[in-house]
């Protein structure tokens, strides 16, 4: 009796093994592949993107094209030649060239408010446009896209942008002497443009 039961048990176990072998093989292979993939990912590090030395340059070229298509030709020439943009304040009694205050927009730097008549610096408005999707590991837009974002936000709703920005006194992040130097460059640039004939000013 015992022999018969023992034999039946052995046959049953052998049968189970045979039936379960394909499943066990698949599971083992899957676990092995998964472990290999994890090991490979750990070796390469997080979010490995192939190195492309020209990516940022191409991005900046596209951004400059977009900026140029959105702002005044005169403003584009200013940005191209000087590296920053002047935007007249719209909340004063006068707007445009007679406005009592204006802003300087630098890429990835605070917006500087100043008095055009005297050159006095008023405030630094720290504002950024971080893209948290980080498609290539960075939240920073190309320089000209950052300038465009600031320009659009200022032109569309100056009061809201200034309200949301962190305000500091001049000199917190941008050296006032360098801003004054830039205002001097802007003044010389405008005189030079004014002296040129209309056709030669084409951006």
């Amino acid at each position, binding site marked *: 009796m015992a022999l018969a039961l023992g034999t039946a048990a052995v046959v049953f176990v052998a049968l189970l093994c045979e039936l379960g072998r394909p499943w066990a093989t698949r599971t083992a292979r899957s676990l092995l592949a998964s472990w290999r993939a994890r090991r490979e990912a750990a070796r390469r590090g997080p979010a490995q993107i192939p190195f492309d030395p020209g*990516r*940022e340059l*191409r*991005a*900046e*070229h*596209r*951004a400059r*094209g*977009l900026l140029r*298509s*959105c*702002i*005044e030709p005169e*403003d584009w020439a200013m940005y191209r030649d000087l*590296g*920053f943009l002047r935007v007249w304040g719209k909340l004063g009694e006068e707007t445009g060239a007679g406005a009592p205050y204006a802003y300087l927009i*630098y890429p*990835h*730097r*605070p917006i500087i408010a100043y008095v055009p008549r005297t050159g006095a610096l008023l405030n630094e408005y*720290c*504002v*950024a*446009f*971080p*893209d*948290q*999707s*980080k*498609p*290539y*590991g*960075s*939240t*920073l*837009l*190309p320089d000209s*896209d950052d300038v*465009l*974002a600031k*320009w*659009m*936000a200022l*032109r*569309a*709703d100056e009061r809201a*942008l200034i309200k*949301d*920005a*962190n305000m500091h006194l001049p000199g917190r*992040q*941008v*050296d006032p002497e*360098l*801003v004054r130097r*830039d205002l001097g460059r802007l003044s010389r640039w405008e005189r030079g443009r004014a002296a040129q004939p209309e056709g030669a000013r084409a951006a």
Partner: protein
Amino acid sequence: MKLLRVKPGHGEILLAEGDVDVPEQELELIEAFRRELDAGLWAAVPTASRDGRREAELVKSFDEVPRDAERVIFFPRAAGGATPPAGGLRARTA
């Protein structure tokens, strides 16, 4: 009308393009518009004032986009307080 988005490391990308007078294309534009706004982006429409000055208008729904607008540009919403990079901004100022 074109819906564009500016992105780090890329510049602008075309999200959608279509004619607002064609119902199917307008629906596609509206869906793409909502997707970007839901992702937390701001939308701006470059415009021109009566005297020809270039301006921009922030819009919060597709209904606010002028029907004759050629482009809507999406960009990340503003966050106060840019962090100075290593070395400080003072040294980098042009």
